[in-house]
């Protein structure tokens, strides 16, 4: 081979490189845009165009895809290859928790059904799997329909067994998580959820799954152009639709917050949660923000009906201003007019005026019962009386315990759900079921997500033969915290008594899972690739 020919070869190669470099860079940029739009299918197509000989580009693409598809070990492998190739890690990671996610997901197993997949930590969280798949499937059906479309890929839900692992995988600073009580996320085209087990008394995890899925669908349909307030408003208002509840009922706490805001005019400014709800100052502020935006959506839907949602997605996705679009769809000239009308509408709502506190989020056993109570967590002086009441109650001094519980209450503060539950137990022990029932019903009304009240109410109603009502309460208790064997036993018995054998069988199985620690066959460890 002549020297001239060799030179020609080098020139040709250089030219090829010069031409292909920008092309690959464009591909990666395009892929990034696809991922930003929550369009995994689009990202996959772009990835396929990245030439395999450009290992760095290929590894970059693999890193992103693997991470978004939930193949965390593959993502870490790609990351390491890039590091070995001299790519600066900081540049790559950019706050994305590749390694912490892989670490947090270690040992988790996956169960797939159709277009949805749930991954969980083996053990008691097995109890969540079937219902998580149900929720996801229902969500896909309902929300894909109302929003016009849904992401084509398999939707992955990661259920992290502890808040620490969730925090690791979320990339959110732990203090933000603990301040605002964020326990689930829709990010990187996946859904991330903290197991209800990480919270002492559980939480409404099913609606939370649906809530996060709505984020995913909205981001997908609007090419991620929906602002946070719209995202949260839609998610909050529609989070119960998956289970057929389209009433838009606001819980007592939300109503109280809104009533107070209406009275004082102190709403949370939109700009404050522009980036994320996770950065709000407190759980209370976050709750008000959610209430504001969800009622705005409700207000809009009263005009447009559900069909307006698809239009909203399209228009926002096309780049129209979200505030203007919402106002327009609701029939107002601008958002300010819409907002004033919304306020007027709010004033007309029969809102509960009572100021209730939001339930504090206590993660990973970081606090005792009192720290999980909205009143007692803020008032350690009152928590002392509650503790004395508990000590008396545990030793059978129920009458005396009631006196201490009464001391623990502050008439000027929101009522304590824990004290309601404890007082009900005492009344029950003192053979005053009517008083116990009255208290529990009040508790359910004020704090429907406070599991002990739901459970006690269900049990008491069951004992009094009010099976349907008991089932309703116990069902809620199960939805909040399925790890209580007594709840599973009662549900099994009650479903059996009403002849609903499939439901009885399901809860019997849950009881079995709890009894055996969730050891079940057919689980497979998540494979790295």
């Amino acid at each position, binding site marked *: 081979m002549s020297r001239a020919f060799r030179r020609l070869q080098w020139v040709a190669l250089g030219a090829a490189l010069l031409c292909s470099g920008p092309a690959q860079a464009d591909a990666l940029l395009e892929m990034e845009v696809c991922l930003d739009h929550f369009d995994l299918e689009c990202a996959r197509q772009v990835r396929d165009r990245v030439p395999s000989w450009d290992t760095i580009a290929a590894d970059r693409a693999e890193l992103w895809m693997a991470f978004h598809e939930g193949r965390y070990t593959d993502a870490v492998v790609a990351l390491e290859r890039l590091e070995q190739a001299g790519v600066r890690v900081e540049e790559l990671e950019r706050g994305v928790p590749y390694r912490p996610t892989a670490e947090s997901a*270690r*040992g988790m197993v996956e169960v797939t059904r159709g277009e949805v997949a749930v991954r969980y930590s*083996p*053990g*008691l969280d097995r109890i969540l799997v079937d219902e998580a798949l149900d929720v996801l499937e229902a969500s896909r059906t309902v929300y894909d329909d109302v929003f016009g479309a849904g992401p084509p890929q398999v939707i992955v839900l990661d259920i992290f*067994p*502890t808040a*620490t692992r969730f925090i690791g995988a979320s990339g959110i600073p732990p203090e933000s998580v603990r301040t605002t009580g964020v326990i689930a996320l829709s990010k990187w085209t996946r859904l991330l959820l903290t197991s209800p*087990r990480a919270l*002492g*008394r559980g939480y409404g995890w099913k609606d939370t799954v649906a809530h996060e899925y709505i984020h995913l669908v909205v981001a997908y349909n609007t090419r991620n152009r929906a602002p946070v307030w719209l995202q949260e408003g839609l998610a909050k208002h529609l989070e119960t639709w998956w289970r057929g509840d389209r009433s838009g009922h606001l819980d007592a706490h939300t109503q109280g917050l809104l009533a107070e805001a209406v009275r004082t005019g102190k709403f949370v400014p939109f700009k404050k949660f522009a980036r994320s709800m996770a950065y709000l100052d407190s759980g209370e502020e976050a709750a008000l923000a959610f209430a504001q935006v969800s009622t705005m959506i409700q207000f809009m839907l009263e005009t447009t009906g559900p069909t307006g949602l698809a239009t909203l997605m399209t228009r926002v996705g096309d780049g129209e201003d979200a505030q203007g679009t919402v106002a327009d769809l609701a029939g107002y000239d601008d958002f300010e007019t819409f907002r004033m009308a919304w306020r007027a509408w709010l004033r007309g709502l029969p809102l509960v005026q009572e100021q209730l506190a939001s339930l504090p989020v*206590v993660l*990973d*056993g*970081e*606090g*005792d*019962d*009192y720290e*999980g109570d909205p009143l007692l967590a803020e*008032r*350690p*002086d009152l928590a*002392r*009386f509650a*503790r*004395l009441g*508990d*000590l*008396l109650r*545990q*030793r059978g*001094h129920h*009458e*005396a315990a009631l*006196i*201490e519980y009464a001391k623990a209450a502050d008439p000027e503060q929101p009522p304590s759900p824990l004290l309601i539950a404890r007082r009900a137990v005492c009344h029950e022990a003192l053979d005053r079921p009517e008083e116990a029932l009255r208290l529990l019903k009040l508790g359910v009304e004020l704090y429907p997500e406070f599991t002990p009240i739901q459970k006690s109410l269900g049990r008491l109603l069951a004992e009094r033969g009010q099976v349907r009502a008991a089932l309703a309460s116990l069902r809620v208790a199960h939805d909040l915290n399925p*790890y209580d064997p007594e709840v599973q036993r009662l549900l099994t018995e009650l479903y059996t008594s009403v002849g609903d054998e499939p439901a009885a069988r399901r809860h019997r199985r849950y009881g079995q899972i709890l009894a*055996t*620690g*969730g*050891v079940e066959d057919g689980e497979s460890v998540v494979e790295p690739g």
Partner: protein
Amino acid sequence: MPPALSTIREFLDGLVRRERTLLAAQAGAQLLGAGCLALIVASAWLSMGWRPAEAAWILGGLGAGGAVLALVFPLAMRWQASGQTLQQARRVEAHAPELEHRLVTVVGRADLLAVEGRAVLLERAAARVQTKLGEIAAVDIHPSTTSLRAWAMAVALLLITGLAQLVFPQGPLQAVAVLGGQPAGETVGDVPPPTEAAERAVVGDIVLRYVFPAYTGIDPVEIPNSDGTIHAPAGTTVQIRARTATPFESAALQVNDGTLLSADLLSDRDLYAELVIREPGVWRFWLMASEERIPSKDFNLVVEEDGAPVVTLESGASPAVPYDRPVPLGWNVRDDFGIERVVVEVTQGDQTREVELRAPPNTPRELRGALRLTPRELGLQPGESAKLKVVAYDNDLAGGNKRGESAEVEITSLGPRGRGRRLAQQTEALRDAMIPVLAAYLVEAVPPAETVSRMRAWAGEARLRYEPVRDLVEAGGGLQEGALQDDLLKDVLESGARLIRFAITTWDPAAPRRITAGDLQRFADLHGEAIVSLEKAIYIFDSLMVSAVMADIARASEGLASEAQELASRAPDMEAAELLARLDKLARTMAELAQKTSKLNDGSLQEYLNGRLDDTKNLMDQIRKAVSEGRMDDAREMLAQLAEQVQQMAEGINDRMAAGQSGEDQLGEAAQQAMDELKQLEQDQRALADELEQKRQEMGQEFSEQLELWNQLDALAKEGAERGRLAVEATGDGRGWRAESVRRLEILNERTGGIEDAVRARDLDRTGERVREAVRPAESARRTVLMERTRSRMDDRLPDGLDAAEGHAGRVREVLGEMLAVLDQLEDRQQRDDPRMQQAAQDMAAQQQELQERQQQLQKDVQSVERALPTGDGQATEAMQRAGEAMERAGGSLEGGEAMAGEGHQREAAERISEARQRLEQQMQQMQQMQQARGEMQGEQQGDGNEGEDGDAQADRDPGSIDIPAPEDFQTPEEYRRALLEGMSGDVPEEYRAMKQQYFEELVRQ
């Protein structure tokens, strides 16, 4: 015979005479010396009170023996030899060797030489010898030194004998008299034993003077007009003075049937004698006149026994004592005459050792103290047991040191782990014992009964409620003195006792009285206090216990994590059987952890921990299953997962504890900041009040007049309050009084009590209001009391205290009238207040407003801190509320230009702020004590886990039991006093002041 020879013989004869004279003189001196010696010994014997017969033997034996020896040694040995001239010649030759044996030859061979015709030789030799002898003096051959020495000795003994006569109660002359048959020297057999029938001489005016042995440290005591009974310890010299009814010629003293002792008889009737107490019995005088010997009556002689010291333990030592803390054992020793030393005997097995506690230099008759020694100082290792006994020795020199012992106490030395465990157990048991007491109080009515008998029954039942708590306190030997738990327990027991006492004395069937509204209110208050103290104690005990459990869980979970980690790392090299065995061990550790978790409150935390343990257990089941199915790789992989899971749990628990600690630190900082701000606010408020006062002083006469009027009001308000109180007290227990009268007096008392505050605050309006409010009740009370005199009664007897009540109530009415008059003057002055002063006051209102705003913010901070403090009781917030009210009033007064009232309110506000700060400070101190107690309960975690560890690292001395040096540890009493004073004057942090007081009280008790 040559003439020289005759001269020689004369010389030698002279020597014979001299030597014999000297020997005789020596023998005489020795004889005298021996006699004196015998007399001295005999008189000493008699003086000691021993039998005269033995003295006679001594005197005879020693005298005779001495005489024989005195004669034998100089005379018998040398007398005969001294008479031989040849022997004398030899001595001269020995003295003058230059004679060259000529003298012996001349003296010994003179006859022989003469016979053999050698007379010339003899004559010449004799001449030479004679010449030489002329140079020798007899004194050179026989010096008188020995003889003189013997005489010197004899004279010395003679002098000693004379001295003995003066010093000894029974001198040599008496000794000789005893031998010679004289009265003083009569033998026992010579004295007729007194009989009942015998005539007795009358002896009276007896004065006894006891001179006690030096070791007793007791000063001499004189007993005039004694009945003659002698009562003293052995060794005491008793000097007896008495007087006979009739004159006698001589007298003697006899103890029991012993030798007669000399007694002086002065002026025929005044007796003086001495005796040394040896044995119990009787004593008497023998009185002699004209051959007649008459005994006095027998007087008793009682020997007071010097008993062994009595040792008692003041507090029972707890059976288990931390090895580096003093054994809480107080002791008390008493002895008749003095304590030489006190020791503690430590018996372990068959070995006993002694540790000295005290050896006071002045042998006091009573000593008390605390053991002050730790088990470690007593030689005990953690975990070891020993029997302790406090032993004291007295200072009895006569009968030897006697020993007294305390009861035996068995203790066990606890290491940090054991101490923490014991403290946690005690705390839990006490908490559980107090809960039923609280429950009973909470559910009962107040008052619990309406009749006297039922209230009495209630009081008995209420007392029984505390029995389990008291039993625990006693069984455990009490908690550490000065510790928070101890204080809380005392508060619980004392508040209960106050309530029960009040119930018993108020509802007393023996002294029935009308129960007033005040009684019921007082009962309700005491009932409430009993509940509050129980609530506080239970809550704090519970918090401490839960903290200890959490710490225990954290430690156990860390152990579990490291165990799991080790198992996971070694798993690749393990066989299936070994793996299963290790899993079983891990399961046991988990079971222990689960057991500890069960002690937590049955809440979410417990559920969380149990859930994590369940997860771990399930994973272990899966591992076992994998191992049994031969899936070793799966098993190992799951082991890694297990290790991580357990590690996460351990970290979670530790994070929670760290978060708790961090929260407490933040709370401490917030509290400190609040206290600093309170101090600043108080200073600023005082400064503003001072400024106002300054201005008022500057603005002249009007101020001093007002001040004078306010001073008058001060005095009147005080008198009114005092009279009101006395009027109620005068009704006593209310017997004989109409209930209405007592009630009106109580109302009056209540009203007058409230006036003082208003006056102190210089609040003209409020004072006027209070005074006017009190006028009517005062008038009403006065009238009803007056009616008590006239109303009809069953027994026509006026109630006790009526006069006093009438007087006080009447005076209260007068006082109120005087106050109204002064108030009028003040109001008048107020209206005429200097416009400049009014303006100045108004100018100051803005500053006061600013202070009030600061107070409002600070009140929120104080409330927030107080609520968060586990020891908070709301008192600081209450004080701040009162401060705010006073500031409000101050602001109002200033705005109205009322400088005097404004200043009063300002000062009141400053006082309340100061009170708030003090309350907060107190609560913080209690929290620190709580943290300290928690640290002790967690000693198990702080130690290295070895029960037998050396505790130096843990030797954080209990501040409540400081090692107090005994006085004898100081070189001089002055040093000790100086150290004491220095210590007392030294400053200590607030929380240690009580301890300091306790320390010096204990010192003073030494």
